[in-house]
């Protein structure tokens, strides 16, 4: 029996002996990590949603109708747009296609379009961008172009969306940091209670000449074990709930496609387990600190 197996035996022995304390610590870790995992899942999902919405920020460039630009002018502009590195994709919509779309949109009440003579609709370019934040600068390039009538890109919507998403992300980062601190405090407090019950034991160990690390290792192994087990349960609950809830939500939210695979299960699991182990270890180290001063 080497040192390590001695420490392991000590740790598991006292986990068994202090069964109720172990359960209390386990439940605390479990709950903290479920909440943390919930926030993580929420962050990943909303992040994916926001990215998708951001992708939908398109620039629509309406061309003049009176007179309509010549094919050469259109080709020239098309080539120019395709040359910009900010542009991901550019689609030219002819006057006829625009009219077809309109007819399709009003297919249920065609009487609205009955009075329409000829085709008053402009041709347009629909441009999607690599990075949605460049929308302003790309849009401004059409100013003064002789064949362009109007540029639309929902500037306000775009701006609001960007400020909201960055604000939300900051909020989530803050929430996660706060939760982490709360979890460590809860764990160290639970462990302090369990150590307090064994205060005398620690005193005796010190009197016999045990070094602080010799006393500390079994407690840290205990903390890590509790943290790991709590985190495993929490990770299972979080991932199962995630797949169930996302399924439900995407059934009900038809106007927006909720990305089902937004949450990287492996990464979330690794994060939750690491946090569990971390708070277990840090918690027992903090909880033990007071009692090692003899």
């Amino acid at each position: 029996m080497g040192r390590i197996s001695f420490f392991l035996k000590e740790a598991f022995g006292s986990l068994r002996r202090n069964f109720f304390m172990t359960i209390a610590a386990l439940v605390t870790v479990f709950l903290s990590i479920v909440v943390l995992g919930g926030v993580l899942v929420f962050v990943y999902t909303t992040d994916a949603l926001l990215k998708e919405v951001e992708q939908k920020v398109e620039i629509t460039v309406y061309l003049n109708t009176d007179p309509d630009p010549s094919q050469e002018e259109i080709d020239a502009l098309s080539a120019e747009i395709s040359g910009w590195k900010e542009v991901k994709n550019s689609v030219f919509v002819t006057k006829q296609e625009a009219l077809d779309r309109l007819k399709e949109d009003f297919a249920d009440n065609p009487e609205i379009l009955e009075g329409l003579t000829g085709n008053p609709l402009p041709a347009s370019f629909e441009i999607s961008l690599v990075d949605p934040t460049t929308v302003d600068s790309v849009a401004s390039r059409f100013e003064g172009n002789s064949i362009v009538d109007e540029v639309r890109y929902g500037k306000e919507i775009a701006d609001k969306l960007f400020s909201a998403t960055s604000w939300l992300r900051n909020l989530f980062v803050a929430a996660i940091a706060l939760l982490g601190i709360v979890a460590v405090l809860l764990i160290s407090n639970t462990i302090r209670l369990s150590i307090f019950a064994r205060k005398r034991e620690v005193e005796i160990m010190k009197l016999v000449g045990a070094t602080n690390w010799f006393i500390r290792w079994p407690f840290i192994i205990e903390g890590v074990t509790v943290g790991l087990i709590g985190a495993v349960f929490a990770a299972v609950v979080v991932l199962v709930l995630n797949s169930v809830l996302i399924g439900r939500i995407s059934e009900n939210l038809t106007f927006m496609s909720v990305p089902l695979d937004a949450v990287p299960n492996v990464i979330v699991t690794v994060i939750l387990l690491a946090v569990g182990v971390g708070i277990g270890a840090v918690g027992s180290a903090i909880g033990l600190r007071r009692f090692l001063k003899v």
Partner: protein
Amino acid sequence: MIKFEDVTKIYPPSTVGLEKVTLHIEKGEFVFLVGPSGSGKSTFIRLLIKELEPDRGRVSVGGRDLASLRRWKIPYLRRNIGCVFQDFKLLPNKTALENVMYALLVTGNASHDSKKKAIEILNLVGLGHKEESFPTQLSGGEQQRVSIARAFVNHPPLLIADEPTGNLDPETSMGIMQLLYRINKTGTTVLMATHDREMVDRMRRRVIALEEGKVVRDQKRGGYGED
């Protein structure tokens, strides 16, 4: 082995623990530390294992000035001082054997070796047949024997016993005393704080009497009271 030079310890605000105590204890001596409760016996012992720091003066053990001993080295000091207490201070969740082995394990000794040593020492204190018993399953005298076995298993040059017979009946106390006497015979310095008048008178060893933190008597072959 032990040197106190003009040692004073005051517990805040103004309770005197020890006052200007100067004394030497040589290697291999057997010394009784006597005096009423609150006379400074426990303070004396706690200074020796550096559980307390003196306010003035110097304490040295084995030629080493404790003031210069770094905090992280305290465990190494304590491994060289066996301690026996009135309340035994055994780890409640460990068997007699495991309690003795713990003192060996903290020093980093290989384990099958430590098991052998621990069994030997339990046999020596007459508890070879109770090695698997937990402290609650042992009588007071037996618990004290385990605690002596633990204190002595590393063969420390110094053994301190703080009222080791305080909770035991006279007959059991006698057995404990004989054990300490035998340990002393192996060359280990033994310092024993006690209230046990009869025991001190019978043993006729060096007696250091404390009163209100001061040494009032230091006698080579003394009794509990003045002769």
